């Protein structure tokens, strides 16, 4: 009897779950925007919330290449870092307004992606990962050595933006809430743009190339060019994330360019679910929350975060969001 009632309830709830997930898929950008607007109300610290936004955007940019196109890059820190440095240099050396600095940050990501992409897309699989890693380390040392421009190992300091002037409004960028919402606004615009790209004909082509390169080629798709363009698009999102990081921290640490940061993007995507729209953000949130909360209690926070990561891989093999999506389908 008990069993009978259980089986009659189960399909109902899973049906409801499926309905919600398909709704979430159709209205993905709106849902994400709504969440980001409400997020500071529940986040423990506003500064952490902003970091989750920025790293979420960075992981999102990485996910275009990794999750949707199926190429694992270990060099995305270079795109993120170049975006951050371009934005920082625009402000500290040229005194450009914040919006121009942000635009230059996006350009930085695009240029770095074009340079690395043009060379790396000739390779595949582990070779692609290695070539992107090597090239990003080249850029790392370039920025490291250009002390006059980048501050070298001390990082680029003095990226101060105190007020955001927009259509006659003066927003106090030092106020944590305003600060958060300014960053959130850009991330939300990026989310809508990404959602649109994924739904476009090009989005279909990207997934096709991931599914079968041979089939794509036989259907008349220039696979190499698709890879390159996707890399550059990914660079634009990562560049924006880097630029926002520079504004958020008021400094560009050299670690932004380090390969650790590349690994971070991989980890966040795997945690949240590669090739899913919400996955990278969920992954970034899990990672940064764990890091920040655990490090309050112990200096050995990496041990706990590492254990949590292993648990996630074991119990959510497709990432938290990816596994939820998969379970609901079966």
């Amino acid at each position, binding site marked *: 009897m008990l069993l009978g009632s259980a089986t009659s309830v189960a399909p109902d709830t899973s049906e409801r779950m499926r309905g919600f997930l398909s709704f979430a898929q159709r209205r993905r950008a709106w849902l994400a925007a709504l969440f980001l607007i409400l997020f500071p109300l529940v986040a423990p610290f506003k500064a952490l919330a902003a970091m989750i936004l920025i790293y979420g955007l960075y992981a999102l940019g990485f996910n275009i290449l990794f999750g949707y196109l199926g190429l694992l890059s270990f060099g995305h820190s270079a795109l993120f870092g170049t975006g951050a440095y371009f934005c920082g240099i625009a402000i500290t050396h040229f005194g450009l307004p914040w919006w121009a600095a942000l635009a230059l940050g996006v350009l930085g990501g695009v240029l770095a992606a074009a340079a690395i992409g043009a060379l790396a897309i000739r390779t595949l699989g582990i070779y692609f990962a290695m070539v992107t890693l090597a090239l990003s380390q080249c850029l790392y040392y370039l920025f490291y050595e250009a002390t006059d421009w980048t501050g070298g190992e001390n990082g680029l300091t003095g990226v101060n933006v105190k007020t955001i002037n927009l259509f006659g409004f003066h927003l106090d960028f030092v106020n944590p809430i305003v600060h958060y919402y300014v960053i959130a606004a850009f991330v939300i615009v990026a989310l809508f743009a990404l959602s649109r790209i994924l739904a476009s004909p090009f989005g279909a*082509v990207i997934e096709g190339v991931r599914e079968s390169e041979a089939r794509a080629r036989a259907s008349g798709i220039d696979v190499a060019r698709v890879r390159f363009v996707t890399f550059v698009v990914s660079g634009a999102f990562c560049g924006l994330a880097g630029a926002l990081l520079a504004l958020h921290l008021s400094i560009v640490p050299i670690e932004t360019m380090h390969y650790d940061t590349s690994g971070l993007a991989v980890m966040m995507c795997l945690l949240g679910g590669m090739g899913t729209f919400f996955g990278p953000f969920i992954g970034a949130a899990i990672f940064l929350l764990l890091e920040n909360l655990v490090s309050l209690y112990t200096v050995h926070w990496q041990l706990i975060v590492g254990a949590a990561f292993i648990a996630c891989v074991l119990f959510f093999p497709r990432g938290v969001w990816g596994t939820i999506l998969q379970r609901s389908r079966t």
Partner: protein
Amino acid sequence: MSGDIILRTHNVSKRFGRLNALNGVSAEFRRNVITSIIGPNGAGKSTYFNLLCGALRPSSGRIEFEGRDVTGLPQHRFAHMGIVKSFQITTLFPQLSAHENVRLAAQTRVTVFDMWRPRASLKMLNEQADFILERVGLGHRRDRPAALLAHGEQRALEIAVALASEPKLLLLDEPTAGMSPQETREMMDLIVRLAAERTIILVEHKMKLVLGISDWLIVLHHGELLAEGAPDDIKRNELVKRVYLGQRDH
């Protein structure tokens, strides 16, 4: 010998390292007929096929499509000119639905790099994809991921994807490989129907299968052109008989 020539190879060879897979093959393919390339295992059929569709570049020799030298062009350019192949081993977009497989192939003729328009706004492509799926008898499988289709259905979808590119020249590599007799009959019927509107080149290991539907046959053996002719001539050809002797299913 009627009809004009759509594709021509001049003395094409293909070497893989020290292996001569194909040795100076010259042949002509007439428009709007079915030409079959046959031969025993290792005859160089698949190599020749892959040269014809641009997947491989010849080591030497020339390929002409509609009178234009197309030797060495990348494969996606072959596809844009209207030369489309289906694969011997089913090669689809496995996670994508049957509909999306066909729609995407149709889309590449219209746009590849458009990042801003919603996919759904290209209504014509959706309708075309549905029409083609109906045509190959997969209308009822529209929303199923390609990976979950039965083998025969996947082969049919493979043809549907090739058709979506609106080929002038459709190259089929052993389209009935691994099929049941029933599925094989259906596939052969489909090929004959498709041949009414376009040129088809068929690679087949089993000669018996294609004798009935081909207008012209090209027989390869050890990477060389052994014989060519109408089915009745090939059937009587002593050389061909000798090559196929001892083969179980000729």
